[in-house]
């Protein structure tokens, strides 16, 4: 038995239970427990990536109930990539939160760990209904993390976010019900087999079920026209939470990719290609509108929110080609954009604090106290996100362009990618010029009460920056890994056999 597959769910879950029990007396215990759990998740995630780098697939039947009757956890390259990414991003967010954000609420560390458990569970499970359950765990923690400070701005954004996601959950159940009614199973691998055997009389039902499911995942992944919630929610959360939220949308991307290739892939009979015609155009529009939003933003944090929307459009556009090359390019872009955006959210928080009353508004104000350090990190982050050499954003975008060459959509994808990169550059230049170049040196009487980032506040930001550099340096092996994942996604026999064959 591969008991270790359950570790990325168990480690945060156990730590989450211990935090309120053992950590009552002092925040130091809560911090230590959270930190140990995050380090554990990073270690397990890294080990999972190493174990799956050649396309191996491991399964674990919970309670030894065999598939398709019990719930199985399935570990393949895609899940391993997401687990490792979650571990890395949450570690740095937690480190940053330890400066002051985790003191504002008693249960901050509890919810962070529940959030990680939910994300890891969602990417590991091989069962459609437990995917729903893990989504709910993840979302309930994210609601709490969004509103835990009780600030007015975050409460209003929180209500919108919660209501939108509750409606999404209702649709999710509706889709699960429809698909179960047609196929009689909830196990994704089993469902993939049964969907292929359906007669034409079930075509309408199964395609409707598939598309309702996609609406839910589009909502989580913030794809047009369901992205309007994202900039508002992300900009009203506190910085480490917003940085952690950067990975929430990627779970939506994961679900889209998993379901559309495994259940509704090329061999799905009457449901084959139920998703394909919609993903590419919607993602393209999302990319364009996200960038327009970034250009028009009046606040730095909102601009970051729109840039997240645009980056999601970018990776889903590549994945929407549904070729091995396209999916691999999208997968390569995914960790890069998550890490870069998380870093920029943390940076925006520091910039806002050091500018004083103007906070993160994009207007002329005084210079941030540590202008050279923050300016340098902002510059590097801007280069990475806009997709200029030498960082991984550039490599990712070139790969997307290359992957689109054989497709007839190339005439759209090339101009869109190049123009939106230019728009990102303009947006960053505008923000950078206002904050760092045109800003005035503060007068002497302002000097007292000015905030300065401590080394411990800069450490997580620089840590994430180092991750981007490392990601670029090790692009070769990572790109190979992405290609392996993409090839296995498009040929789901291995996955289905690993799950369904486990009973023998």
């Amino acid at each position, binding site marked *: 038995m591969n008991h270790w597959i359950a570790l990325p769910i168990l480690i945060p879950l156990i730590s989450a239970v211990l935090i309120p029990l053992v950590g009552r007396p002092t925040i130091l215990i809560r911090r230590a427990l959270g930190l140990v759990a995050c380090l554990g998740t990073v270690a397990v995630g890294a080990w999972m990536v190493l174990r799956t780098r050649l396309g191996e697939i491991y399964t674990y039947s919970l309670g030894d109930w065999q598939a398709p009757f019990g719930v199985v956890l399935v570990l393949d390259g895609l899940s391993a990539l997401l687990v490792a990414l979650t571990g890395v991003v949450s570690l740095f967010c937690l480190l940053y939160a330890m400066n002051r954000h985790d003191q504002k609420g008693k249960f901050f560390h509890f919810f962070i760990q529940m959030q990680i458990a939910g994300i890891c569970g969602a990417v590991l499970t091989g069962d459609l209904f437990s995917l729903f359950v893990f989504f*709910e765990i993840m979302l309930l923690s994210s609601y709490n993390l969004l509103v835990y400070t009780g600030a007015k701005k975050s*409460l209003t954004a929180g*209500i919108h976010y919660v209501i939108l996601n509750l409606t999404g959950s209702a649709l999710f159940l509706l889709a699960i019900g429809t698909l179960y*009614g047609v196929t009689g199973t909830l196990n994704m691998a089993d469902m993939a087999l049964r969907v292929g055997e359906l007669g034409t009389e079930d075509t309408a039902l199964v395609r409707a079920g598939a598309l309702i499911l996609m609406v839910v995942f589009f909502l989580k992944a913030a794809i047009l026209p369901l992205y309007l919630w994202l900039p508002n929610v992300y900009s009203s959360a506190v910085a480490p939470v917003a940085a952690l939220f950067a990975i929430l949308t990627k779970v939506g991307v994961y679900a889209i990719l998993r379901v559309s290739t495994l259940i509704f892939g090329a061999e799905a009979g009457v449901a084959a290609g139920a998703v394909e015609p919609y993903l590419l155009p919607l993602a393209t529009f999302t990319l364009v509108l996200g960038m327009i939003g970034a250009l028009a933003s009046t606040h730095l944090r909102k601009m970051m929110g729109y840039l997240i929307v645009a980056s999601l459009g970018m990776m889903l556009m590549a994945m929407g080609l549904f070729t091995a090359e396209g999916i691999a390019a999208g997968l390569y872009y995914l960790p890069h954009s998550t890490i870069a955006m998380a870093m920029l959210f943390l940076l925006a928080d520091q910039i806002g604090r050091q500018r004083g009353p103007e906070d993160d508004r994009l207007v002329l104000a005084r210079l941030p106290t540590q202008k050279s350090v923050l300016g340098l990190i902002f510059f590097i982050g801007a280069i990475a996100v806009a997709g200029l050499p030498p960082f991984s954003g550039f490599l990712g975008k070139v790969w997307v362009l290359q992957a689109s060459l054989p497709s007839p959509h190339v005439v759209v994808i090339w101009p869109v990618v190049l123009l939106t990169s230019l728009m990102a550059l303009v947006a960053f230049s505008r923000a950078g010029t206002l904050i760092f170049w045109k800003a005035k040196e503060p007068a002497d009487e302002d000097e007292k009460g000015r905030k300065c980032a401590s080394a411990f506040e800069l450490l997580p930001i620089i840590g994430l920056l180092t991750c981007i550099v490392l990601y670029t340096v090790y692009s070769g092996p990572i790109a190979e890994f992405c290609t392996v994942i993409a090839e296995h996604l498009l040929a789901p026999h291995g996955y289905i056999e690993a799950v369904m064959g486990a009973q023998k």
Partner: protein
Amino acid sequence: MEALIASAIAVLGSCGIYLVLRERTFTVILGLALLAISVNLFLLSMGRVAPGHAPVIEEGIELVSYVDPLPQAVVLTAIVIGFAMMAFVVVLSISAHFVTGTDHLDGEEQSP
């Protein structure tokens, strides 16, 4: 039986959608509750509507007449999760009401 359940789902669902689109938190929460109920009924009926049959096979029950137990297990989980979420959104909207002083969804009254 099928017609009754189907129309119940339809009526509850459409009332829920109408209420969710309103602008006050209270009506929206009511709408979410109705929507959740209609979805739960829908999930339950996915195991085929067969009244009077047992979902658990025991000795003495003929194998020809049992209903699928899975939707019942699934709907139980869905009800529990839905209930927790409803409690959360009620508490959230109350605290938002205290902080913003209005029950409008946007946290401020819209000028006409």
